[in-house]
């Protein structure tokens, strides 16, 4: 099995005054070596919570329940914090959205990079420094040796994000989780950083989970994706399959509501998904999308909607048949 990560039946509940918020509901997916897997969805869909749950970084008010979480063949479903601390930063690393706040302003770049390696492996400071220089050059930072002595505030956003990528590679991880890595960056830098991520990932054969709300980023960067809505995965598949033939009405709605230069007619109104996302608190039944879905019928509210697998790796969570959705047959 070349699965770096296998997640089955992940649930995350957050305890808030209004009740129990079911942030992640019955989420299952797997990531292979060298593959870019994307978790796509809008704010509040649970994608970041899923990543934090896998990393063991959930807030204290959260409860995690999973049928199985396997990382590099090891079962980490009930791994305690000590064990996760050994894994985090070394074999499973995370790149966050805000390069401005991810680096500690009080320490040099070199210190922070070396610290990662020294924490997890028994190497000398010199070896750590060499590895830092090697990776800084890999991520396209020139004059790497002098950069080591610089402080984060002396670098621009794009450079800082490159440093974050280098930091995530210090111990040679088998899985990188990137949470909206380019959202806070300028457009011209975005493409460069994404290219960099994909190339280092392929070179080091790491798996990557790319969390984003930007369908353009997913289409151009990822190999496979899972669309999340209201805590659940509503569709999975390879990027080509899902973009060519979206099966879930939400996925379809998402793709049709973004303006695409060259495709959508300027000045024309866009198709929209009416209404707003419900908050998954308390008792939940049926399909969470049904109050906004064009195809909704009474059966949608009755019971839990199961994931339908058309083929290994291709699924969607809807009671409609694929052809109904594509041809727009309403209730």
């Amino acid at each position, binding site marked *: 099995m070349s699965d770096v990560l296998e997640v089955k039946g992940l649930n995350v509940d957050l305890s808030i005054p209004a009740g129990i918020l079911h942030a992640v509901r019955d989420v299952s997916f797997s990531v292979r070596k060298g593959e870019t897997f994307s978790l796509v969805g809008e704010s509040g869909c649970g994608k970041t919570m899923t990543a934090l749950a896998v990393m063991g970084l959930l807030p204290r008010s959260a409860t995690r329940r999973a049928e199985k979480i396997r990382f590099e063949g090891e079962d980490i479903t009930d791994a305690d914090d000590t064990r996760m601390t050994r894994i985090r930063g070394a074999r499973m690393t995370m790149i966050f959205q805000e390069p401005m706040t991810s680096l500690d302003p009080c320490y040099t770049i070199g210190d922070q990079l070396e610290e990662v390696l020294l924490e997890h492996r028994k190497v000398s400071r010199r070896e750590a420094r060499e590895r830092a220089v090697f990776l800084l050059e890999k991520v396209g930072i020139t004059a790497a040796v002098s950069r080591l002595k610089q402080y984060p505030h002396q670098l621009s956003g794009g450079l800082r994000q490159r440093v974050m990528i280098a930091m995530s590679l210090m111990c040679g991880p088998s899985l990188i989780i990137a949470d909206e890595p380019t959202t806070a960056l300028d*457009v011209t830098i975005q*493409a460069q950083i994404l290219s960099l991520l994909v190339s280092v990932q392929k070179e080091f054969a790491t798996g990557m989970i790319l969390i984003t709300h930007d369908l*353009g*980023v997913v289409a151009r960067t990822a190999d496979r994706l899972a669309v999340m809505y209201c805590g659940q995965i509503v569709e999975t598949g390879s990027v080509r399959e899902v*973009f060519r033939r979206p099966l879930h009405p939400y996925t379809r709605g998402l793709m049709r509501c973004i303006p695409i*230069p060259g495709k959508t007619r*300027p000045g024309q109104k866009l198709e*929209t998904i009416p209404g707003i996302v419900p908050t998954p608190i308390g008792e939940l039944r049926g399909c969470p999308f049904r109050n906004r879905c064009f195809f909704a019928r009474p059966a949608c509210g009755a019971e839990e909607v199961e994931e339908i697998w058309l083929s290994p790796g291709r699924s969607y969570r809807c009671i409609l048949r694929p052809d109904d959705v594509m041809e727009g047959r309403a209730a």
Partner: protein
Amino acid sequence: MNHAVLEARSVAKTYRVNAGMFRGSQALHAVSDVSFSLGKGEVLGLVGESGCGKTTMAKLILGLETLTRGDIFIDGTSIREMSHREIARRVQPIFQDPYSSLNPRKSIGSIISLPLRALGIGTREEWEQKVGEIMERVGLPPRLRHNYPNQLSGGQRQRVAVARALIMRPEIVLCDEPTSALDVSVQAQILNLLIDLREAMGLTYILISHDLAVVEHLATKVDVMYLGRIVEEGPAEDIFSDPLHPYTQALLASVLTPDPDLGLPDVRLDAEYPNPIHMPPGCSFHPRCPRAEKICRTVLPEMKREGERRVACHFPGPARGG
């Protein structure tokens, strides 16, 4: 021939910033020599990345900052001669962040009616009525007028911002990244609303955005800014189908359309976005330009005009090679 509703002539804005403990203050040229004009009913897209000066232009047009040089004319009158209130009657903003653009201590009704109350237009009953009308116009249930911003979703808050901007029927609406902080599905709703209202109320928009897809969808005319200057201008279709300035070409190439058959674009821009305090000599884009020659490093390119298009480049033209 559209008579210009808004005209900027050689607008410049310089800030003095502290450049460090012992270096005293230095000049930050946020905007240098910007000129453009806008006809009624048009949508001008001001495009550029962070630090290009588009936000500063927005503040200058709204009268929130003072011009260092140059002038801005609204309907033929210079804003230097207009009072705050007169500017407010003509231009209203919609800001990016729906969480910071509404006063958390005020009710929705109070927020929307603020322009009316500040300018002393109408009576209390008229305010009530107008607030109700505009709320329905933008798709908000009027009963929400007694609620507070924290009780509304991001999309609803942005609609409140739209309502506030439009309640006085301004001529020009300045939209500063109106949908960047919203979810994708909500973006579409707000964009549609903006399109609707423009037709129904005969508005003129200035749309400031870094999201080129949104600009391409809404704008009739586009101005591309880089480090405080306009580098290219033209009708939206022309700019998007045939960009002439290398920076515009790089920008357009960086747009990631959701096409799974295309990989990542190979945008060749060397070096980082420079610090606006230390502007490169000559053409400010030359350190990153794939076409830079000797003249680019020393001489600031003049704006060349061809019909409705303008380019500030020594070597404008379609992208060459791969």
